[in-house]
């Protein structure tokens, strides 16, 4: 049975402000400081003060492992900003990093809060230090005595500790089923790098060619170095407001038209029924079931690229191209370019702008929809955008419409 419009309560919520801390490959700054910088920037951007903020939501919450994965928890920020909240939440078992934003939408719709600050804070660049990724692998210095348990039991034992390998296997399956090629996959990375050149906060801004991409060292086939995002330090925040409290704020409200949170396959990296799409399939289908808008109404897309292939999953899942056809869809990069028919990852994505982990895409959509993206602003300021974050078994997406 179709929902009637007043049951789709995320529509009572909007994004009213967005902010970011300094971002860098390795800043060696207190991650709480970066987190607070981002939260205060988002609150000011909305035209609010900390006195107005009565809710808080974050992904994943306070965690000490893996190192750098969480810069601050909910209590850290509530305390530091002396917030008085009607509702707060954090957690990692949710529909992608944006699950924390979706929960904030529900909280304002339920009247538990009016203005919720939502944040994601990382310091993986500093945490890894000069030793790189190897420094943060499970077991650390006592690895010989370390034993795998939980979800990691089933891949760590087979020397597959990285999501790079797990997701590379999805890409390989897609290559097998649909004839997708590395020359096509490359365009996710090349498009991101081209856009990053115009983003002063991006980590990698130098030009990247198809030849550079094809000559890069392999990480886990079919992925090379440029298919994997770059760990960084930085925090991103947005304010989610109840729409009736956002009319007179500084920014035009970006109403949440619909969200997608579903997962119908097994919530596992290797047991999900369809390895070529995973949970993006279910979240995307749910999103479009909650709106009359169609992919053809969308002017801007910001899709997670922790690994390049995940962006292709989202393109197919959300119906911007047919299943199996994302390779030809992106090949050559024209269609997805900043001045193309469907601008994608206009800030440089996580591949070039840094692994801000989901929230970077929402921040970029907001900034573009407010016409505040500076040199990289898409020409016709977009009024409808889709943001999607996560991959594998942890996926969520949202459709934003600028009001007024």
């Amino acid at each position, binding site marked *: 049975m179709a929902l009637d419009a007043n049951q789709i309560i995320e529509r009572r919520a909007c994004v009213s402000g967005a902010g970011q801390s300094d971002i860098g490959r390795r800043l060696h700054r207190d991650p709480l400081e970066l987190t607070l910088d981002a939260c205060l920037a988002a609150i000011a951007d909305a035209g609010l003060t900390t006195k107005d903020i009565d809710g808080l939501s974050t992904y994943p919450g306070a965690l000490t492992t893996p190192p750098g994965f969480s810069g601050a928890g909910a209590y850290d920020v509530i305390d530091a900003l002396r917030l008085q909240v009607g509702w707060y939440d954090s957690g990692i078992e949710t529909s992608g990093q944006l699950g924390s934003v979706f929960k904030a939408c529900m909280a304002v719709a339920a009247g538990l809060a009016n203005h919720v600050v939502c944040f994601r804070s990382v310091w993986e660049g500093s945490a890894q230090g000069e030793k790189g990724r190897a420094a943060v692998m499970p077991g650390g210095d006592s690895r010989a005595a370390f*034993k795998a*348990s939980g979800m990691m039991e089933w891949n*760590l*034992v*087979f*020397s597959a500790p990285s999501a790079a390998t797990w997701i590379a296997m999805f890409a390989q399956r897609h290559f097998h089923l649909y004839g997708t090629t590395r020359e096509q996959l490359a365009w996710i990375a090349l498009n991101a790098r081209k856009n990053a050149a115009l983003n002063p906060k991006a980590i990698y801004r130098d030009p990247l060619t198809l030849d550079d991409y094809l000559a890069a060292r*392999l990480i886990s086939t079919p992925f090379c170095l440029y298919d994997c995002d770059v760990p960084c330090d930085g925090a991103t925040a947005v304010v989610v407001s109840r729409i009736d409290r956002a009319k007179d704020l500084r920014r035009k409200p970006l109403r949440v038209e619909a969200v997608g949170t579903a997962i119908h396959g097994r919530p596992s990296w290797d047991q999900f029924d369809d390895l070529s799409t995973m949970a993006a399939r279910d979240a995307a289908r749910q999103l479009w079931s909650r709106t009359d808008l169609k992919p053809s109404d969308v002017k801007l897309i910001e899709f997670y690229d922790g690994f390049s292939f995940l962006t292709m999953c989202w393109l197919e899942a959300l119906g911007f191209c047919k299943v199996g056809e994302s390779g030809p869809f992106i090949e050559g990069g024209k269609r997805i370019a900043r001045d193309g028919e469907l601008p994608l990852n206009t800030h440089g994505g996580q591949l070039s702008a840094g692994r801000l982990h989901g929230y970077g895409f929402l921040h970029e959509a907001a900034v573009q929809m407010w016409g505040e993206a500076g040199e990289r602003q898409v020409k016709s300021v977009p009024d409808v955008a889709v943001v999607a974050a996560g991959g594998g078994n942890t996926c969520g997406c949202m459709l934003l419409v600028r009001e007024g």
Partner: protein
Amino acid sequence: MADTPFRILPKLTERNRPFWTGGANGRLVFWRCRDCGHYVHPPIPLCPVCHSKKLEPEAVSGKATLTTYSINHQPWMPGPELPYVVAIVEIIEQPSLRLTTNLVNCPHDRIRIGMPLRVTFEHHADPEGDVWLPLFEPNPEA
């Protein structure tokens, strides 16, 4: 095996022990529901299909097909000689019965999704209990 690579080993529990030690007898073992016949993996205390708690360890043939794979070139941590192949295989007894594992004894240019495989075990002695990791290799008899 003379050149057994470093592995992070599984923490053995009553529930996972049949899987990780079945290789001592050359057998690939899963928990199976005695009521509806479903193989349950990873192991949990009840059958996810019929909710029966009558589960028993049972050996399968050890035959599988290759669902997908990746040739890993990155030295994430000590492990097999680079590059090595990480694979997801489907056990022939049940379409949904999958494992992440390593594909071994197969030239990389001969890897084909869908190819028939068979289990081979990598033994690791450990003070907390020996384990046998089920790896897969091409099955010439298939």
